[in-house]
């Protein structure tokens, strides 16, 4: 297919069997002009990662996934094996900044001309001159125990105070450090320091068999298990040119929507809790618990862990289960409607939600805010609606958007998405095709690659996979939407009071594990 992006003419090759995913090789020097063309066209940068390809008789490579009007464009640029570098893209897409820094920490691939060259995922656990994702990384080298000594940006002036928070927080949430600079109760600056849950996940993928890889992919961020497992399986199935039975594809969508409902119910409860409406927490968590228990009864796991597997799904749904699930979906829809009436009417809650933690649409567009937070700031992207892959191409998903970009807007988008997911679930149950639920993967005899793209409950989840000629995983990169959304938490809290931070943070509910890898 010929495509035009700005003044760049391209011949795009669709990823085999990969829907709206296009791939091509691009010289590193042309990356900025290409990125600018995408930007002018209204597109975004979704992910940036690197790979060590020296064992394939190449150098290193930098990969970028762009979102554009034709779908997702995956560019690969080969880099010099001795001095791997590519031109900075953060000056065009600011969301590339942390991804570029992480790519350096893990692979020693440099973004030339980048303004911010501080470390990101590396704290003190490995030395600055060691790069864990290089194939010749010496894992036996003793870990350094340097303290992190991260150079935060200081705000100085009369009456400015610093509040360091974390890595261990007051509540039961994942670890991360937040450095507030405040005057009185107003936030002047917030700087995040993440990476505390860095588990070496990407290194761990190397050499795994394809089934174990699916289990690990699902645990990149546990709350998005089905989204990751599906994206990983799509990547593997594309790479190996394997077909998946229709019933399995529909069941995968069922799992993804069930995951979305569970997470949104939990968040709506916590948003109530964070404005001292314990009633909201208890009611939504009662519904979530009912949902999880039925999920466990039907599929053997409360969060559907390991139910999406390469080639299909691991467990079928009996007809009796369909009726039960549809009945619970009906009840939850009714009850969520009742609770929404309470949230709508509750003056205290509305007062705290409205005009708090605003990310305006133009800022969201400039910074690449994605997923549900993006949609609450008028960034109308939803892969299920715009680039639907099976079975969404037959489901006609209604995208939920809002314009105000405050806590209220993010709650409203969740309410709308719960309703839509429950509709999709009923629709899937009604139209679930008969047949097998798993097919064997086509055998692997050469190095092959694929990319999977799934609209998780938080936003776009991407998994890129390279399988070696031996049929085992050679390189896997998993991308969480939290990468591009975390910087907007820093900006969304500005001018707000410190006590509203937990509420604003919860309204985004971003993953630490997903971006720490």
């Amino acid at each position, binding site marked *: 297919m010929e495509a035009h992006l700005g003044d760049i003419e391209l011949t795009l090759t669709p990823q085999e069997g990969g829907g709206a995913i296009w791939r091509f090789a691009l010289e590193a020097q042309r990356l900025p002009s290409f990125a600018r063309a995408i930007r002018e066209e209204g597109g975004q940068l979704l992910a940036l990662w690197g790979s060590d390809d020296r064992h394939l008789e190449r150098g290193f490579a930098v990969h970028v996934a762009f979102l554009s009007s034709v779908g997702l464009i995956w560019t690969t640029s080969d880099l010099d094996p001795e001095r791997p570098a590519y031109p900075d893209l953060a000056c065009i897409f600011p969301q590339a900044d942390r991804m570029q820094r992480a790519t350096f920490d893990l692979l020693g691939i440099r973004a030339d001309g980048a303004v911010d060259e501080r470390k990101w995922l590396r704290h003190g656990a490995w030395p600055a001159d060691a790069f864990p994702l290089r194939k010749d990384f010496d894992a036996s080298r003793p870990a350094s125990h340097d303290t992190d000594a991260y150079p935060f940006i200081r705000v100085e002036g009369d009456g400015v105070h610093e509040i360091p928070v974390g890595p261990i927080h007051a509540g039961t949430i994942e670890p991360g450090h937040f450095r507030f600079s405040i005057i009185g109760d107003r936030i002047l600056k917030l700087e995040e320091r993440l990476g505390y849950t860095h588990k070496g996940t990407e290194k761990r993928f190397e050499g795994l068999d394809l089934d174990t890889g699916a289990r690990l992919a699902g645990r990149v961020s546990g709350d998005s298990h089905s989204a990751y497992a599906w994206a990983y399986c799509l990547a593997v199935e594309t790479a190996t040119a394997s077909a998946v039975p229709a019933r399995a594809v529909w069941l995968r969508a069922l799992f993804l929507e069930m995951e979305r409902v569970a997470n949104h119910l939990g968040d709506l409860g916590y948003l109530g809790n964070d404005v001292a409406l314990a009633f909201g927490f208890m009611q939504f968590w*009662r519904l979530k618990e009912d949902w999880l228990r039925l999920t466990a009864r039907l599929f053997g796991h409360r969060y559907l862990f390991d139910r999406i597997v390469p080639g299909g799904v691991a467990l079928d749904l009996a007809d009796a289960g369909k009726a039960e699930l549809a009945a619970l979906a009906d009840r939850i829809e009714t009850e969520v409607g009742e609770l929404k009436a309470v949230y709508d009417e*509750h003056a205290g809650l509305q007062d705290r939600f409205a005009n708090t933690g605003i990310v305006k649409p133009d800022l969201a567009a400039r910074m690449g805010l994605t997923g549900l937070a993006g949609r609450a700031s008028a960034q109308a992207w939803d892969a299920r609606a715009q680039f639907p892959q099976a079975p969404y191409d037959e489901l006609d998903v209604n995208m939920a958007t809002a314009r105000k970009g405050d806590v209220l807007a993010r709650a409203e988008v969740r309410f709308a998405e719960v309703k839509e997911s429950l509709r999709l679930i009923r629709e899937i149950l009604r139209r679930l095709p008969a047949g097998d639920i798993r097919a064997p993967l086509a055998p692997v005899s050469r190095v092959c690659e694929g990319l999977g793209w799934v609209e998780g409950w938080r936003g776009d989840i991407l998994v890129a996979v390279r399988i070696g000629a031996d049929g085992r995983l050679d390189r896997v990169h998993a991308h969480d939407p939290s990468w591009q959304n975390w910087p907007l938490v820093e900006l969304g809290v500005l001018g707000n009071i410190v006590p509203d931070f937990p509420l604003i943070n919860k309204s985004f509910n971003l993953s630490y594990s997903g971006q720490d890898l």
Partner: protein
Amino acid sequence: MATHLILQKIFKTGIVSEPAPEADLSLRVRERELHAEILKVFGQAVSIRCVDAGSCNGCELEIHALGGPHYNIEGLGVKFAASPRHVDLLLVTGPVTRNLEVALKRTYDAIPEPKWVVAMGDCGCGCGQIGDLFGENYATRGKVSGVIPVDVEVPGCPPTPEALLRGILAAVSGKAR
């Protein structure tokens, strides 16, 4: 009016809390001689500090679920607290990452004696099918007991809220295994 709607919903919902499960003493990995007096006190109430030492956040989902109305943990005297100085029990999830190791040890040290540690999940316990999925590598120290002393291990990926509650109760139960 919100008040009217709230009251209506509360009465319609009724009480969904379930009876408490029994402590599962088989989850104990360490037996300690403790003063009978102390156990009598802790048998009534326990305050918990959670530390995610590197989990995928799956275990956190179940810790949150434990706070829901089905489990009524505060009715049992189980409470989550913000400061390690205020707690009796440390609940740790995840394979312990090197980036969080120091913070975990400091949290452990900050808890006054006597204290208990519950490791939660296959990664934190280093057991089951998932226990070695992350394993030990340049970034990870593996199971919690490799870093701080552990009294109770609750396996699962993630363990259900009920299993977690049985483990917490086992840690502070005065009964011997």
